[in-house]
């Protein structure tokens, strides 16, 4: 029976112990105050109960030292809670560099997941244990929210924005995930399961259903040719546009002298609004692909461009800032 009434969900990610620790800390502090005040009230309630109808209480108007005490001590404790919470939060928002990237697209009322090799799942997410996973979240309609209680992670999926979240599953098993931002009629059934697998099982699972076309890198490579990106973005750096080899993750030098980290957001923006950031030494020639590519095609292109990270960077004709080039 005890297992039927747990007080906290399973701890299945790197964040879970931190969040639960924080929870225990705040609960203890709060319990201390709640119990203290409650005992005081109950004690006073009986001890100073009116014994005669005409009786009045002892006039005590206040005490500045006491006031100062109960302003300063709670303030210190509150700042302690804030600081600990801030530390945990910063961890949530800074994903480590070596992540396995999975794309998640939300729409009323389902989740489409795309594994790095292009394998697609609906309302299911398979991940290897002890590997840093990063989800990139996009919405096709209203605001949704991807929530895995066992991992203690949650992030809104906002149309018009790309949000990312990361976690490292630490325990194989199957865990619920939910949509936790109200999104209309079937909000409550817009959920599914995260399956955490041993790396070997995960690899087997992936290859078991692997299809050539389904691989986003392959699909992206095809699109790269079809959409004639390849005619300007020549790999050896001789084209009208910078070579994309090794660009992902590097610092790109822009025409206005600033640099920008080439992350998914930058790639996406460069596809949809090419003129927002022009690489130094190049003309603003690229057309926008807004409205011409589906979300999935953009993800495929992004995946392909990311796969070029390991390709040799040409000496000339790359947009990478010289001083911070990748080693």
């Amino acid at each position, binding site marked *: 029976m005890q297992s039927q009434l747990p007080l906290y969900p399973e701890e299945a990610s790197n964040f879970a112990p931190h969040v639960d620790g924080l929870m225990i800390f705040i609960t203890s502090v709060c319990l201390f105050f709640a119990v203290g005040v409650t005992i005081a009230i109950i004690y006073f309630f009986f001890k100073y109960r009116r014994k005669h109808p005409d009786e009045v209480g002892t006039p005590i108007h206040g005490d500045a030292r006491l006031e100062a005490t109960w302003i300063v001590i709670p303030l210190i404790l509150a700042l302690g809670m804030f600081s600990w919470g801030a530390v945990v939060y910063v961890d949530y928002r800074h994903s480590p560099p070596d992540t396995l990237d999975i794309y998640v697209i939300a729409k009323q009322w389902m989740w489409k997941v795309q594994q790095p090799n292009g394998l697609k799942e609906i309302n299911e997410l398979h991940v290897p244990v002890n590997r840093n996973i990063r989800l990139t979240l996009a919405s096709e309609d209203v605001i949704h929210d991807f929530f895995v209680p066992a991992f203690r992670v949650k992030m809104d999926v906002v149309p*018009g*924005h*790309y949000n990312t979240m990361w976690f490292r599953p630490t325990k194989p098993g199957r865990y619920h995930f939910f949509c936790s931002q109200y999104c209309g009629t079937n909000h409550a059934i817009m959920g599914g399961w995260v399956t955490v697998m041993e790396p070997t099982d995960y690899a087997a699972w992936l290859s078991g259903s692997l299809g050539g076309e389904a691989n986003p890198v392959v699909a992206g490579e095809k699109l790269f040719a079809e959409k004639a990106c390849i005619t300007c973005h020549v790999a050896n750096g001789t084209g009208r546009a910078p070579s994309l080899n090794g660009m992902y993750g590097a610092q790109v030098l822009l025409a206005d002298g600033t640099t*920008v980290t080439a992350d998914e957001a930058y790639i996406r923006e460069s596809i949809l609004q090419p003129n927002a950031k022009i690489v130094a030494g190049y003309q603003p020639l690229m057309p926008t692909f*807004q*409205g011409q590519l589906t979300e999935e095609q953009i993800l495929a292109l992004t995946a392909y461009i990311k796969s070029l990270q390991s390709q040799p960077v040409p000496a000339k004709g790359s947009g990478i800032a010289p001083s911070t080039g990748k080693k």
Partner: protein
Amino acid sequence: MSEHVVSPKIYVVILLALLLGTFLTVQAALRDFGPWNIVIALAIASTKAILVILYFMHARYSPKRTQLVVVCAAFWLVLLLALTATDYIKRPSDQSRLTSATAFYRS
């Protein structure tokens, strides 16, 4: 409390100052000062607004509580704008705003 009668001379001076401000702000807008154009436009507008509030609306001669009200209004307006800015200025996904407006208009 007897009320303060502001003399028409002051009103005329303020009127002239406001007209001068309008002239200056239009002239400044027609020249390129880079990002300073916004600053100049808003600084002149604020100066004009302050003149209207202090003299035309008699805030300068009003009781303390009225002046407090004016300060509160300005403070809360700035609060609304500034605290929202903490989000927008540093919002990570800003650069990747996808403007699917095109798709909307084509559909």
